């Protein structure tokens, strides 16, 4: 789960991570009020969306007067901000963060992520702040300090020293960096984060460390123990069909193609998308109804696929294991009766209770195209797209 920069900074504040003074605003008037309270110029007005690259995309602006704050905030709020992470359609800006401007001496990079290969927590820091860290890692890997922490033993002082020395910090700044590393590690562990990132982490002209930006992602699988974080979820930032699907515990991702598909199991669902592409079409979605799906989930999944206006055909591919084919068939029939099917549907079923499932579909009187196996299913999908 993602949260906004201003929400991440609220969490930083609770963990005594130094951040610039500021507040979120939902319209131009409110933005001016925040700026007035800050009492000095320039101030920074930052668009709040769940995507990186906001600065380059024109979503971060300096303002030198109240008037300018109002103008910039007014322009940003309501605009479709396009960054390299939003795709060409951009993301609607609904709020801005207004913050004090700072005299910056140096920009650093800092992040904490779980490292899947070593099963350790890795702290990454770099003197090349403010840049795309992937680019830094590719071109100048020697500029990145990586420190691996065993989650059982926990963060030790020597880890913090490695980070601080690696950044070339000494004296008071080294102390501040140690403090910051310790606190952010605590935050990371306390909240089951999947990413804590500050880019840039700045050294101000007054020799203070300050988190100019803040990005936190959370492990979806751990949200059950963080009810306070769940409340920070911003549904406006998510695809409406995906939000709808999540209500029914369906794993759905909306894509650009026109062949809808419903599959049980994530791996088989991805492979089915690939098969659609190989047949010369583009998948309209990823939908894993899961191993333990019931007829109601199948029905909802079907309805969600059909509500995507781009869908011109549907491929259902189920390998019955825990999800029995007769249960799937019942769900499809119910969904078809309720919503009506106006596109061709190819069904490929195999596994547990497949005969019963095929009988239910055959006797339903629905116009379904049955496929003998995966090869056959792909060929029939290709036909749909050509017609």
């Amino acid at each position, binding site marked *: 789960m993602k949260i906004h920069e201003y929400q991440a900074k609220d969490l930083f504040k609770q963990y005594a991570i130094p951040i610039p003074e500021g507040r979120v605003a939902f319209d131009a008037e409110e933005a001016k009020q925040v700026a007035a309270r800050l009492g000095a110029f320039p101030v920074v007005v930052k668009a709040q969306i769940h995507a990186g690259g906001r600065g380059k995309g024109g979503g971060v602006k300096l303002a030198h007067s109240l008037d300018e704050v109002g103008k910039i905030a007014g322009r940003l709020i309501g605009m479709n901000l396009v960054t390299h*992470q939003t795709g060409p359609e951009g993301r609607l800006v609904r709020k801005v963060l207004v913050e004090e401007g700072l005299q910056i001496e140096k920009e650093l990079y800092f992040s904490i992520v*779980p490292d*899947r*290969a070593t*099963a*350790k*927590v890795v702290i990454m820091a770099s003197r090349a702040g403010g840049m795309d860290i*992937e680019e830094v890692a*590719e071109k100048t890997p020697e500029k990145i300090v990586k420190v691996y922490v*065993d*989650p*059982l*033993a926990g963060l030790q002082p020597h880890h913090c020293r490695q980070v601080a020395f690696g950044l070339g910090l000494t004296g008071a700044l080294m102390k501040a960096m140690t403090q910051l590393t310790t606190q952010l590690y605590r935050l990371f*562990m306390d909240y*089951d984060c*999947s990413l804590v990132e500050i880019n840039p982490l700045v050294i101000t002209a007054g020799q203070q460390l300050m988190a100019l930006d803040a990005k936190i992602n959370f*492990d*979806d*699988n*751990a949200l*059950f*123990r963080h009810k306070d974080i769940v409340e920070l979820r911003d549904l406006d930032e998510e695809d409406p069909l995906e939000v709808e699907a999540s209500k029914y515990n369906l*794993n759905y*991702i909306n*894509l650009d193609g026109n062949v809808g598909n419903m*599959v*049980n*199991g*994530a*791996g*088989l*669902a*991805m*492979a089915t*998308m*690939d*098969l*659609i*592409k*190989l047949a010369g079409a*583009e*998948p309209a979605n*990823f939908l*894993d109804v899961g*191993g*333990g799906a019931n007829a109601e989930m199948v029905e909802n999944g079907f309805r969600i696929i059909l509500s995507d206006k781009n869908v011109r055909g549907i491929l259902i591919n189920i*390998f*019955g*294991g*825990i999800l029995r084919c007769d249960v799937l068939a019942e769900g499809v029939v119910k969904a078809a009766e309720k919503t009506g099917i106006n596109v061709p549907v190819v069904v490929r079923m*195999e*596994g*547990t209770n497949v005969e019963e499932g095929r009988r239910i579909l055959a006797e339903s009187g629905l116009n379904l195209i049955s496929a003998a*196996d*995966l*090869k056959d*299913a*792909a060929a029939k999908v290709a036909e749909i797209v050509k017609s």
Partner: protein
Amino acid sequence: MSIFADNNTKVLVQGITGREGQFHTRQCVDYGTQVVAGVTPGKGGQKMDGIPVFNTVADAREQTGANCSLIFVPPPFAADAILEAVDAGIELIVAITEGIPVLDMMKVKSYMQNSPSRLIGPNCPGIITPGQCKVGIMPGPIHKPGGPIGVVSRSGTLTYEVVHQLTGQGIGQTTCIGIGGDPVNGTNFIDCLAAFQEDPETKGIVMVGEIGGSAEEEAAGFITEKVTKPVVGFIAGLTAPPGRRMGHAGAIISGKSGTAQGKIEAMEAAGIHVCRDLGRLGELCAKVFSDA
């Protein structure tokens, strides 16, 4: 022969009295697996279909001689369940549970570093040695006993598809293992590849991967150095958009790493026969393994 599980595997089921635990225990028993015990805290002394239920794994092991645990415990309590099995000295632990927090699994992994126990999963279908024992949730009848092919996969139903096509071609399996779709798991590709390489009955290997992480690339490196048996590979997720988690917690392309294309290239460079069309995987296996 087989790897990790066979006729001598004596299974205890953690979470045996739950809905899924009961259902799959019955399926395993029907397949011929020796299920000797169940564990549900607070229900010790009861029976499930005649199988004795214990309060703790240690009790169950002591009184039944179980050497393998199959775990159906819900995510908030699953890490604890795995650690209980480790502490009780269970040799093979198979965790089916999907949705365990990453930090929990990282701690489990660290704890198990010097333990003799082997963990398969979590978020996996389990392990089956066709004709001998099934410790998991895969449909038994699609498998064909007697080998000669070993199957290792990060996925569940995709593995069933692969096995179904193998069986359809008349190709049997020695052992099929789902290592799970989570970013942090116990047994990995390399562990399975090494065991299949050692197993005299296994003449060829099918390896099924997907986007996310670098486990396939590392496995390809291992194959180049250590595996002499023919390997057929498949990678799911060529059409997956970057930055999105495709169902499995571990199936995500981050930046430029973890792409299907990158994995396919690494595997082809290692001499693996990578199948691009899942519909024809069985045919490719028949060709590649014809001499096996």
